[in-house]
């Protein structure tokens, strides 16, 4: 299921055994892939409370200490909430978020650990979720952009992006917001140069860097005024 977004494999004409995922098979029967992905997301939500033990019993491991290559139980803690999924080991955290949990805030752009659009925070560190296996993210505390606006109220970092015109097309924005938040959580009183250096792992093709740096400094000042990190 790893390459659901990968159009090259959606025709089902790839090499034998090559990404022969359920979504590809369904699409060849005239199902829209997006519909199917949404459907999977719903099914997953329904399976959140299936106990781990039941799933394991249904899928015995063939080699001791090894799981997969088929779907295996994967438990993720995202924005404070536990999610129980069944994923192939090859599924990235980004694909799990977007295609299985319907959290489409983190964006898939380069998909090669370069551009930063997929940035989420894992155990306090910014990471490229396109390059973390979901199965490897188990036991970690994962923060995504969706977690920054509970009940519709913007986080000071998000608000500062709005106030400082820190986006144009907006595609890189969630990744930048998460990178800024991860940085400010650890460095509440940064200088301009420190902010600039901290965002070296994120690209904006529209060139909104000036606004983003201003937003980061303003968010830092606001959060410090309220007694530090939120």
């Amino acid at each position, binding site marked *: 299921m790893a390459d659901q977004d990968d159009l090259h494999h959606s025709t089902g004409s790839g090499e034998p055994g090559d990404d022969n995922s359920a979504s590809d098979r369904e699409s060849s029967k005239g199902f829209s892939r997006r519909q199917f992905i949404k459907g999977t997301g719903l099914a997953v939500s329904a399976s959140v409370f299936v106990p781990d033990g039941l799933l394991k019993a249904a899928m015995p491991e063939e080699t001791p200490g090894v799981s997969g290559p088929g779907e*295996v139980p994967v438990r993720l803690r995202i924005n404070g909430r536990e999610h129980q999924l069944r994923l192939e080991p090859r599924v990235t955290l980004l694909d799990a978020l977007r295609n299985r949990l319907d959290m489409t805030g983190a964006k898939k752009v380069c998909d090669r650990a370069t551009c930063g659009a997929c940035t989420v925070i894992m155990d306090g560190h910014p990471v490229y979720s396109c390059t*973390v296996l979901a199965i490897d993210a188990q036991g970690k505390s994962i923060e995504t952009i969706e977690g920054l606006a509970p009940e519709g109220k913007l986080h000071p970092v998000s608000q500062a992006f709005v106030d400082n015109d820190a986006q144009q097309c907006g595609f890189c924005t969630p990744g930048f917001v998460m990178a800024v938040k991860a940085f400010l959580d650890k460095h509440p009183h940064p200088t301009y140069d420190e902010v600039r250096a901290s965002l070296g792992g994120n690209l904006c093709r529209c060139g909104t860097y000036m606004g983003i740096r201003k937003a980061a400094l303003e968010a830092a000042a606001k959060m410090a005024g309220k007694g530090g990190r939120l």
Partner: protein
Amino acid sequence: MRPFEYGNPSTVKQAISLLGSDWEQAAVLAGGTDLISLMKDYIDTPKRVVNIKSISALRGASEVNGGLRLGATTTFEDLFENPAPLRDFPSLRAAIDGIYSAQMRSMGTVGGDLLQRPRCWYYRNGFGLLALDSKGQSLVPHGDNRYHAIFGNAGPAYFVSPSSLAPPLVALGATLRIQGPKGERELPVAELFRIPRHTGEREHTIQPKEILTEILLPASARRLRNATYEVRERHFMDWPLATASVALRMEGRRVRQARVVLGQVAPIPWRAEGAERELAGKTLDEAVATRAGEAATVGAHPLSKNGYKVQLVRVAVKRALLAAIA
């Protein structure tokens, strides 16, 4: 990405038992910043992936016998946040500071830096490490070779060693611990690297059933004046174009012995022995540093589009030397 089995061992021994006798059987996963991309591009298609991040013994920096031990899965961020263990090794610190991206620092490991595969775009686009066309000829000499090697490029390999840590580690005389089914072996960092002679030979001497577990810097390395200078096309988002790392055994202002190692200019970390000879016995000042930079370029054979790297080597060596005694 092809489907794969996933192993998540908690000891090195378990991890080794899960590896295979060739690279197609199994791959070791640490930070994943290289392996996952290689798997997405079908450059690497292992049947099994063995995560070693759950082996807690492999992570962390500590002082051992007066030297420094770096566990292979220590992240760049571990050292960036707490650089105290690197206090005598500004050359390593500079290489770590050169990892531009906070995300890359959080994920990337020191062992993975040494074992990352070349960034050569022919390799990354499926033409193999030796970038061969359908007739078995290398695409590099007449192709777009602006980022390729200027040393050690008599063929068949033209890619450059991409490791940031290898030049300072080789200059400082670091060794590696590698564990395999038959036990442990230790080897100088320089011997991890080789220029492949034929298709199928990797640029690393580590074997498919082995795991790099530790990087060791001897206590004596603490007495070396050391520095690294990286030349970049842009400040962020890129590997350096040329790197020079120097380690100097000094007697007052006189250089008793020098090691000068270049990165990003050869298929292996490249010892600039001409520069080392130029420095031996000299009192290091700007003129001597300039001459050493010139000597470092002896033997360079630029390809059609990378002649500029010769000048970068000159400059990087000079600046690294001056930084080491600053």
